[in-house]
């Protein structure tokens, strides 16, 4: 579950962004900036909680840069997202100069009384730090908001047909900016989870493609929160499995084991998109299209 949490966080944020019709390929950049923001602040203040808040803020600020460019300056979303990733990687290693090799303050584990005493299932499900549960709560919350609330309906309307939503008087740009900021905050949290809990230290480029895997998992989950959750746990399971295999000293070279999560992500993508009608239908209709009121 620990391996899957950063991916869940980033993927659920990106899901909301894509539901609003914006394709933000900068997840990787936002994650790594979140990772260093969270790490730096946690080390400075000694409190991982403040670190996570800072990570969310950092990710959101960076994502708003993307939002302003794509929503007000109408730049190409694919190119801007890539730019965000490149910029984020550079910025993060710049910010992380003084933090290499330091250990962050430990994030306390939250043992749920009674439940964590259940044999086998207890330690697996109920003995984690707070962020694991926050991630789960976010998934459930996102699902509920998208499905049952007015705000969720507006968000989906903007994503499916921005011209119609505009004609109905909804502020397309504002809705999208909020979605982008939410996505950025989630990606930042995911990055901070990597640097504060999972690894836990700061190294340059430490997200190592986690952001891209999160993007793939949104596709895999067909833009549905619970399938995204499933995909992320599947991926987390594979990661842990290959790490255990490495530790167990199986006769496969380490490098080939390490590449397996990426290969499996690709394989899953292929399987998902080959049933093409299904995948194409569930993607938001205005995904990646530019919106300008006059056009």
């Amino acid at each position: 579950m620990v391996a899957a949490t950063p991916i869940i966080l980033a993927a659920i944020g990106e899901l909301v962004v894509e539901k609003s019709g914006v394709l933000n390929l900068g997840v990787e950049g936002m994650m790594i900036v979140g990772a260093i923001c969270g790490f730096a602040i946690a080390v400075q203040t000694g409190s991982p909680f403040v670190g996570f808040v800072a990570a969310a803020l950092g990710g959101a600020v960076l994502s708003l840069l993307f939002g302003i460019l794509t929503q007000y300056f109408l730049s190409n979303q694919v190119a801007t997202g890539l730019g965000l990733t490149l910029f984020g990687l550079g910025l993060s290693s710049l910010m992380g100069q003084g933090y290499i090799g330091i250990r962050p303050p430990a994030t306390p584990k939250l043992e749920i009384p009674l439940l964590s005493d259940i044999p086998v299932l207890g330690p697996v499900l109920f003995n984690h730090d707070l962020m694991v549960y926050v991630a789960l709560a976010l998934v459930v919350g996102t699902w509920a908001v998208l499905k049952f609330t007015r705000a969720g309906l507006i968000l989906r309307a903007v994503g499916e047909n921005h011209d119609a939503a505009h004609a109905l008087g909804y502020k397309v740009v504002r809705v999208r900016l909020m979605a982008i900021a939410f996505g950025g905050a989630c990606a930042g949290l995911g990055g901070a989870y990597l640097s504060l809990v999972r690894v836990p230290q700061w190294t340059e480029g430490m997200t190592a493609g986690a952001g891209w895997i999160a993007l793939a998992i949104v596709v895999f989950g067909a833009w549905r929160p619970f399938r995204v959750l499933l995909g992320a746990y599947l991926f987390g399971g594979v990661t842990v499995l290959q790490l255990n295999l490495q530790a167990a000293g199986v006769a496969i070279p380490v490098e080939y084991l390490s590449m397996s999560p990426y290969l499996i992500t690709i394989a899953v993508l292929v399987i998902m998109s080959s049933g093409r009608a299904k995948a194409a239908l569930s993607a938001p209709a205005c995904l990646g299209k530019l919106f300008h009121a006059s056009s």
Partner: protein
Amino acid sequence: MITLEKRPEPSRVWSWATPPLAVLLTMIAGGVMFAVLGKDPVEAIRTIFWDPILGEFAFYYRGQLLVKAGPLILIAIGLSMGFRANIWNIGAEGQYIIGAICGAAVGLAFYPFDSFIVFPLMVLAGALGGFLWAMIPGILRVKFNTNEILVSLLLVYVAEFILASMALGALKNPDGAGFPGSRNFRSYPSGHNAELMAGTGIHWGVVAALIAVIFAYVLFARHQMGYQIKLAGQAPRAARFGGVNPSRLILFCLGMSGALAGLAGLFEVSGPAGQVSIDFNVGYGFTAIIVAFLGRLHPVGILLAGLLLALTYIGGEAAQSSLGLPAAAIQAFQGMLLFFLLAVDVLTNFRFRFGKREVA
């Protein structure tokens, strides 16, 4: 109230003027960034952009300029073809690595056989390696409709692990006393991509880059394939009615950019880098994306943009040693450049209108 108004057609003036404007804005913003880092901004900008060309030690840097610009241009030309047709190959870094490994493997297999045929064979193997690596996202896209952006990028990580395993395993120098990394091509003349003219930095990779620029120019200006690429990018529906085969186009664009990236990798590994080592890739494949955009996806523009970004690499190194500027600052600087470029691009397609919005 400032509003944006769509231009009836993209402005020619602005499409030429935006890249320099973006560079200028980046210099200003970069100066602010350097000032925040506690360095003298004017000094930093001068070290990066001025000294390598016209400064005291320019004779050394000028050669380096072409060495760095060669692979950037080579990769960016390939990428620009796909980008024009809305086919996003962002895994050039992976194709670059695989090209280098394949080419180097062929060269090392011949060691110490001495013949003029070795190097051309290496070049072919390098291009083929990159081509095949790029065919993976290509074929998956055509056959299974898989998103080529994600697949090509994820393959970069796979390629990096293959590189590590090669440098530590199959291609390791048998006489290397156990150190990771392959034999050095500098001590194997038939496989070495040497400088063609001493002191200029021109090696076969630079020549190949220039050929690629000319080739791409002709392709876009004169050849039907180039026309189809542009058509598919600007009006996909029209392209489909016009009989453009999208699958063929995808495979062509990805294969071409893969082969060029593979070539760039081979020239790098056999020349400036010298050997297959764990960390021989330095992100050219990603920087080339910036080059392609900064050059407005036009071959001549890419040539200039490649030189400019090569300058930031070299200037960045100079600034590292003389000013103690962190290496990452340059990366952030390059990312900023792409941002500003995309932002000012709005001027090409829209114009600002001051005053109240009229009621439609």
